[in-house]
């Protein structure tokens, strides 16, 4: 009986806490925030009191808490109540839920490919007609972002079905500034410099790179990021798009050359810590640790913005381990391409509140609240970069804003059997000794059978 009373007391405490969810930054207080956008949004979305809205996404743990710190601003402004649920098997669950006819109002897709599948089946609602124009105007490399979320609907007509929010930058090379200083190396300005630096480090008797492709069942994916990044540095973005849709076959000489370029780094015993043989068996989570060894096992590590999570204990991103932009070629003029990932919001029901939520995501304040904390970068150019919670995030955000070309992780755009299968396996086989041509032929072979 006593426990029951205690539990219900706790329950009451919890529910009241949820009801008066705190706005972690008091509106109007910190003038770096764009409070005008918040007031304006509130003024234009009145009379929605008491409505409610379900959001379903892949975020759990820290990301869930952070997202739930953004939601109260929307609730406060509109009077709509939002319930967010996260799942680590989001990809399966969203398909099941929408096929069963009980979808959430809004879903947060980590892969646009999956959203495109659902759009084709008619499970997604098209967003406001001006979304593409809005993205083009307000996001850095905005037309690329707009194209990313434009899918064919059930009738085959192309419309914008998603709203990109929260991005990742993948074109990063991590290094230890102290080691670079000690050895007298400079951060390379161009792709050619990067290769020269690689050779320089070998000449000095050291090992330039740590590369690890191991990831349990997903072993091989880090190599796909490498290939995608190199693709953007060697070929125009149009070719990248054609490659992702297989208009440009995987075993086209252009792609084979890119794979070989990756081999230049990964298949040379002198270039990688542990030798080429260790590349595919080293876990990607262990791989960056070599940077911090004494003497350093390697000087550079190419990986996305999330990797500091796997730095050894006590190593801080931006201080002990820093990053630079994976440089673009000085010889081939392709601008500043950036490879990235990110999440996309889509509406699945005819709920008026859901569309209001998408409107909310346009306001700078929806980005700034998360930015000011951690783990969030945005291509929105209406926000003040000074708000970023730390300097590292700010510089990542800058890379995104400086991008002349932005391309989404290609393997996430390819059909699942390729992007989460044959491509990985092919890269593991390639590093394990197959030629680039053989690996590319095998991947194209699988793709052919999918048509």
């Amino acid at each position, binding site marked *: 009986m006593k426990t029951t009373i205690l539990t219900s007391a706790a329950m009451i405490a919890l529910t009241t806490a949820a009801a008066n969810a705190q706005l972690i930054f008091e509106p109007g207080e910190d003038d770096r925030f764009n409070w005008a956008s918040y007031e304006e949004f509130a003024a234009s979305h009145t009379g929605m009191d008491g409505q409610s809205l379900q959001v379903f996404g892949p975020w759990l743990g820290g990301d869930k808490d952070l997202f739930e710190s953004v939601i109260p601003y929307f609730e406060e402004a509109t009077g709509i109540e939002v319930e967010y649920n996260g799942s680590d098997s989001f990809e399966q669950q969203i398909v099941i839920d929408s096929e069963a006819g009980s979808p959430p109002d809004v879903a947060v897709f980590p892969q646009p490919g999956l959203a495109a599948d659902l759009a084709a089946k008619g499970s997604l609602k098209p967003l406001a007609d001006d979304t593409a124009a809005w993205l083009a105007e307000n996001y850095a490399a905005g037309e690329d972002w707009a194209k990313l979320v434009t899918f064919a609907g059930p009738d085959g007509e192309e419309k914008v079905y998603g709203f990109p929010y929260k991005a990742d930058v993948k074109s990063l090379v991590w290094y230890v500034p102290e080691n670079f200083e000690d050895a007298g190396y400079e951060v390379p300005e161009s792709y050619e410099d990067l290769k020269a630096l690689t050779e320089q480090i070998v000449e000095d008797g050291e090992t330039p790179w740590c590369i690890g492709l191991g990831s349990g*069942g997903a072993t091989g994916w880090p190599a796909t990021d490498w290939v995608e990044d190199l693709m953007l540095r060697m070929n125009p973005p149009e070719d990248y798009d054609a490659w992702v849709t297989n208009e440009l076959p995987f075993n086209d000489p252009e792609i084979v050359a890119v794979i070989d370029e990756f081999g230049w780094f990964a298949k040379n015993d002198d270039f990688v810590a542990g030798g080429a043989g260790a590349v595919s*068996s*080293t876990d990607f989570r262990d791989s960056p640790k070599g940077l911090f060894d004494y003497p350093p096992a390697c000087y550079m590590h190419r990986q996305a913005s999330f990797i500091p999570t796997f730095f050894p204990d006590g190593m801080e991103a931006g201080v002990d381990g820093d990053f630079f932009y994976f440089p673009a070629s000085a010889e081939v003029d392709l601008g500043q391409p950036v490879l990235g990932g990110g999440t996309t919001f889509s509406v699945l029901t005819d709920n008026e509140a859901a569309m209001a939520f998408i409107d909310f995501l346009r306001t700078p304040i929806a980005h700034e609240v998360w930015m000011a904390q951690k783990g969030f970068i945005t291509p929105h150019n209406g926000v003040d970069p000074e708000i970023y919670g730390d300097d590292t995030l700010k510089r990542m955000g800058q890379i995104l804003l400086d991008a002349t070309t932005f391309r989404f992780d290609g393997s996430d755009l390819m059909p699942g059997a390729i992007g989460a299968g044959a491509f990985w396996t092919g890269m593991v086989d390639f590093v394990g000794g197959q030629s680039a041509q053989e690996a590319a032929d095998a991947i194209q072979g699988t793709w052919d*059978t999918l048509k």
Partner: protein
Amino acid sequence: MELLLLAVGTIAAGVLGCVAWFWGSNWVLDTILPPRGENAGDNIRRASMIRPWLFLGPAILFLGVYLVYPVVNSFWLSLKNAPSTQFVGADNYLWLVGDSKFRESMVNNFFWLLVVPALSTLFGLIAAQLTDRIRWGNIGKSLIFMPMAISFVGAGVIWKLIYEYREAGEEQIGLLNAFVQWIGGEPQTWLTIQPWNNFFLMIVLVWIQTGFAMVILSAALRGIPEETIEAAVLDGANPWQIFFKIKVPQIMGTIAVVWTTITITVLKVFDIVFVMTNGQWGTQVLANLMYDWMFRGSPDYGRGSAIAIVLMVLVLPIMIWNIRNVRKEMR
């Protein structure tokens, strides 16, 4: 507490359900065809024809729902496209024939079949014979049998650590490389050396299954009548002759059962490969390939089911032979 109540409730419902079914169905049958009155003889005859089916009924129903229906449905799915929306005939099977990963899986499965049951049975037989002779035999037996208690996934994780690789000169956390480095060799990335990595994976299953083979064979060895061995001793047979010419022929049936049982386990091997390499570096096997197509990326139910059907067709003859052998043993 809730769980306990639920468990007790389930058991009670199960037992009462069985009793109710037995009693109720008999009562219904006896009411419809009463064993008295003018048609008593006919009724009894008819009732006794129906009665076995009444008792078998629930079993047949559950077998149908949980075994036959899934098989038929898998076959049906294997004739359809990825989201099962369109009938594609034999397309998925034709794709299988041409797929290089499928061929790789077939070759690997073949070697698994060749190596694992043979080695497990052989080691099991040796262990059974030796542990019966020595004083600490029971301790030895427990040690050999212990891996049986570990799940395949657990065993995979343990052995993955044994094969773990660190750069030469560094402290090796993998047992095997630590040993190699200690005797002055060069550490290897064992799990990526093709085609040997397949055999490094097989060792794991041999390690697990030897205990099983040992226990069954040890029991069989003890069941051999003493007289035959005494007669052989009197005739001057040496220990080798006794073992190979007297004992082994007498337990041949048991050896066959052990062999085929392990063979079936091997055909279904999935967990070990999934945990240790996930089929990369040329170690793909059928069950893992099926899982890949069924659940990874955008699911392809057609191809996954086609592989499942192939797997089932391969297991079936061995299964039938195994059941026949077990029955022969029991007679």
